[in-house]
């Protein structure tokens, strides 16, 4: 039976810039030039309808908005990771990212916990932004 691997992010033409930046260990977002809303892909702004935007660099700092802990694997590749967390981090600039919290016990994760980005090179080609706790 082949080794079942964790899935890799879906990179498309519209979010290539985000994943290229992550590969360089930088966090970037596509910013609406009219209202400032942030996205991780080049999209027309759903907040104001603007079609003008540009990629900007983000601080990589934020706080845990919400999270959960998986005690049951829903995918075979995550069997050995149980229990693991999935979190939404709200960055200082306002963008919310799905991620994992690393560098602390699951029981210490809490809403409002200050975090900063770390970059995990999961394969030679692919890097994932994750977040670790920091002092406020």
């Amino acid at each position: 039976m082949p080794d079942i691997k964790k899935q890799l992010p879906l990179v498309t033409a519209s979010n290539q810039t985000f994943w290229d930046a992550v590969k360089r260990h930088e966090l970037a977002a596509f910013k609406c030039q009219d209202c400032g809303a942030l996205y991780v892909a080049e999209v027309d702004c759903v907040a104001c309808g603007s079609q003008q935007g540009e990629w900007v660099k983000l601080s990589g700092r934020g706080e845990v908005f919400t999270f959960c802990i998986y005690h049951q694997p829903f995918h075979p590749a995550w069997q050995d990771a149980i229990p693991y967390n999935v979190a939404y981090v709200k960055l200082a600039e306002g963008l919310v990212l799905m991620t994992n919290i690393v560098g602390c016990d699951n029981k210490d994760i809490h809403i409002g916990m200050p975090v900063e980005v770390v970059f995990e090179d999961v394969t030679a080609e692919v890097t994932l932004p994750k977040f670790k706790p920091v002092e406020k």
Partner: protein
Amino acid sequence: MTIKDKYAFVGVGLTKLGKVPDFTPEELASQAIKLALADAGMKPSEVDGCIYQQGMGGGLSDAGPLLQAGIHASMIWQVASLGSYANVMVAMAISAMESGLCHTVVLTHASSAASRRGGGMMPMMGNSTPGAYGWYGPGATAACIAQRYMHNYGLKREQLGSIALTLREYANKRPDAIMHDRKITMDDYLSARMIVEPLCLYDFCLVNDGAVALIITSAERARSYKKKPVYVMGSGIDHSLRVAGNSSEAIHHFDGFIADRAKEQAFKTAGITLKDIDVAEIYDAFTIFLLSQLESYGICKKGEAGAFVADGNLKLNGSFPSNTSGTGLSWGYLMGFTQLTEGIRQMRGEGGACQVKDAEICLVTGLGGMVDNGSAATCTILRR
């Protein structure tokens, strides 16, 4: 022009729920359709429209179940596999009949989720950004909503547990409920294994096989069938989350589902207010979904639903009897059809030991989609 009371349900067909491995979803759907025809006292040739919804594993073809039941429909539509869609299918059926496409529609849904695992809401193969973080299944959305609610309003696990217990008590009184014979206590709830923390086994709906078929037709035609018609007073659909991923707007639903427009549409059409609701069937894929919607529909003020459920208000003798079959958590999960079916039964007076006395008007709700790919709140108001 209003659709109020112009259309009515006349037939209900339900197969066995639970583990039914000997039948495919297609065969289950066909059984349910035949049962609904018999329930109404209707000939197959009198049905000319069908709207169907796949279960998670798929398996339904367009005309297959209909042909097995002897129906040659002119209109067959398929909808997405989300908990919001039973109510959407009611609105679609009414739209189709209003426009003259057909005059009698069977709505059906079949699932083999217990016997034929597979499918699901997230892609398990290929590339997936949520998958890269281990995010699978709507349970994580529910858990993240519960986490926010605990943080914002001090929701206690015992309060979610009271929903699980209330619904289980209903199911214990309903012979066709999957959990009819299995009682649970608060100790059972609090010591149950976590699935996606902070939600445990009893916060999740059942995973079962089974099929349902409901027949709806015009009020004039409805009067010629066997059962007392159950009229549709109003219908509401609210895709309030307009975002297709990636915007910070998507976080709104972690702090409660938005159902403003669905509620307004349905209640305005029906010409009633919340006070007129005698019984409610609220979509309960998870305990927290039910709890959150009590606030979305204004049954409770923001932050007060935890105390409301713990005080027993959802019970048969409570101020707002709800989910009277035990619904998705304890009766059987047929997406939004679990609620719609029980709503129709309550309006017919077929609730058995869980019948809300003299109930005349019922609110049925649905929810669909997940935080990152848009979601919808839907509802139907029924009357006897």
